[in-house]
């Protein structure tokens, strides 16, 4: 392999890594730090522009001074903290053990194949989290049961529409609407001592916590554009949730 094709391969790998990090929910500074570490191991200097949808990267070989610029689109975001953790560990391992390009490629391929938790476990755990929130905010065990079922239904619809490749905001609306309607049945029949709590907590699984935290850290790191984009995404998410809740409450004539 000549120098030029090796540089292109390195650039593609670093683009792949930064895209993987962004998709998994890392903030912009985290993506930059990780690719800087990998680039330093490979004797390269990297200059990148990371936006919400696209990454532009220029890579310069420190020995030959040859450079190459590549662009890559970022696929839809799917939060996965295990990937971010594994890439971070790999970057430190690469520095301490002086990994080759092939070793880094193999590790990244391994990370891409990391398993997610089984779907049923996710549904159960998130529904339990919804029930937990209900308890925290003065719901009794009947309210918690309603919150559990509502969250389960909402998340199930959210996941099903993801499989059908619906637009994110339509999915958020449907998830919020179904969860709210289920919880409103509890309000309608006055189940438990505080049925409104179940309604309020049933849609919390849709709260864009990662987007808003990343928005804040991006703004603090002076990645103003990405910070604003993430903040806007968070606001759009909240709007879609609110519309779902509003429509459900309107149907039940609940003010």
């Amino acid at each position, binding site marked *: 392999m000549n120098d030029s094709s090796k540089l292109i391969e390195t650039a593609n790998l670093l683009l792949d890594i930064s895209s993987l990090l962004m998709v998994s*929910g890392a903030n912009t500074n985290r993506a930059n730090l990780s690719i800087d570490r990998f680039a330093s191991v490979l004797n390269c200097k990297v200059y990148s522009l990371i936006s919400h949808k696209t990454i532009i990267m220029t890579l310069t070989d420190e020995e030959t001074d040859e450079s190459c610029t590549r662009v890559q689109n970022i696929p839809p975001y799917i*939060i*996965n*903290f*295990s*990937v*971010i*953790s*594994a890439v*971070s*560990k790999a970057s*430190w*391992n690469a520095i301490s053990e002086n990994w080759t390009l092939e070793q880094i490629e193999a590790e990244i391929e391994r990370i891409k194949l990391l398993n*997610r*938790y089984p779907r049923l*476990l*996710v549904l159960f*755990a*998130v*529904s*339990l*989290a*919804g*029930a*937990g*929130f209900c*308890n*925290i*905010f003065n719901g009794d065990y009947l309210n918690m049961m309603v919150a559990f079922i509502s969250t389960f239904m909402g998340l199930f619809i959210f996941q099903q529409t993801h499989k059908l490749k619906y637009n994110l905001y339509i999915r958020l609306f449907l998830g919020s609407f179904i969860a709210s309607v289920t919880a409103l049945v509890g309000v309608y029949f006055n189940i438990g001592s505080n049925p409104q709590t179940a309604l*309020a*907590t049933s849609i*919390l*699984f849709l*709260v864009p*916590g*990662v987007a808003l*935290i990343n928005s804040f850290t991006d703004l603090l790191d002076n990645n103003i554009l990405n910070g604003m984009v993430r903040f806007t995404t968070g606001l759009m998410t909240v709007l879609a949730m609110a519309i779902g809740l509003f429509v459900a409450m309107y149907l039940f004539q609940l003010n």
Partner: protein
Amino acid sequence: MLEIILKLLEVSFWSGIAAVGFGILFNVPKSAVITIFVLSFGAGFIKFLLMHLDVHVVLGSFLAAFFVAFIPIEKRIILTHFFSFLFLFKTDSSQVALVPIF
């Protein structure tokens, strides 16, 4: 008194469960799950104890969030880089119990 302590422990427990649920949704590493529960249990205990002592919810939430962020930073100073990043996620997930919905 015992009733208050039991109530505090109950909401702290459910804070921990809520944090673990969100952690699993975000696919945190399996090794992080117990730490997420413990951190969120502690955060919930601090927040609701302070609220019980008539401390404003904003200050209570701030101190609880500070606890969640502070413990991992302490650990990060002690541990090597390999473990440090893991704690960031524990921090993110553990703070969900502090969501202000009312």
